[in-house]
């Protein structure tokens, strides 16, 4: 089972709705849990991952801080033009401590892009350290 949440497996961040250059969204896919991407105020905030070809997503594990509502959408097109929701979750309030969440994605959907929306947060700013995307090449 490969992890498609890693740059080393060909995944790139093709968009993020906000950026602090000291904490870029590429920190999400660098495989290092001590680096992070942080939102810079107001919700929702988004980032889009582009995979190296189509993949099947079985499970997603997230390491975050102060994320409340999280929505995951997939795109199967060659360009990120239309998205379909595949999962939604509300994370527990940890008072600024690390949130670790693991979600089975029903039906193992195929995706060429994954759009992640932080719809709301538990604090003014939320951070994402890691998105482990377990799956296989489609």
């Amino acid at each position, binding site marked *: 089972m490969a992890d498609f949440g890693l740059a080393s497996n060909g995944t790139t961040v093709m968009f993020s709705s906000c950026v602090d250059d000291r904490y870029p969204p590429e920190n999400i896919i660098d495989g290092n849990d001590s680096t992070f991407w942080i939102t810079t105020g107001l919700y929702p905030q988004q980032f889009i991952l582009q995979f190296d070809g189509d993949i099947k997503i079985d499970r997603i594990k997230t390491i975050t801080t102060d994320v409340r509502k999280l929505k995951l959408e997939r795109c199967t097109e060659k360009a990120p033009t239309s998205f379909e929701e595949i999962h939604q979750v509300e994370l527990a309030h940890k008072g600024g401590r690390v949130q670790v969440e693991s979600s089975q994605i029903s039906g193992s959907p195929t995706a060429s892009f994954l759009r992640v929306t932080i719809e709301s947060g538990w604090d*003014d700013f939320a951070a994402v350290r890691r998105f482990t995307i377990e799956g296989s090449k489609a």
Partner: protein
Amino acid sequence: MSSANFGVLLRCKVIVVGDAGVGKSAIVQMFHSKGSHYPRQYNMTTGCDFVMKEIKVPESDYTVELHIYDCAGQSVFKDLTSQYWKNSNIVIFVYDVTKPESFQNLGEWLDLVRKKCPEKVLPGVVVANKVDLEDRVKVHTTEGAEFARNNSLEFCQISAFRDINVESPFSAAAKLYSQAYQNKLETLNGI
């Protein structure tokens, strides 16, 4: 704070509350127009007016884009305007130094904001407006400053009409917000 030139834009939702007629809209419009537009005729705000303006935080690399919701002060609109308070980051409480009841009502505004935004205690600023009306001042500086201190809020004295210190509550809001961001980064880097 680092002296490196990283240039970060933060976005912040600010709500402006207080009794009707204390000058909330005048303050917001004077700030938004850089002192060029003082509304000479009173137009009661119904619901909420919205303006957006960027402000640089001095001696830092942060710029804060303030999304300012100027909320109606009439009690009849309280239920309506409080719907706009969701997910606020900073609150600005305004009173009129010539109207003691507008100062006494700040406690009620504070309770209402905290009830409607229960997730966290919002940081904010208490603004004493109309300080140019020196001979009619009924609420003295010490009272306003004490209320602010007791509620962990900043305090500013301004006159929207005379364009005195109009930027100060918004500068204070931007500074509070950038400090919150900086504190968050330090916490995250410490985990």
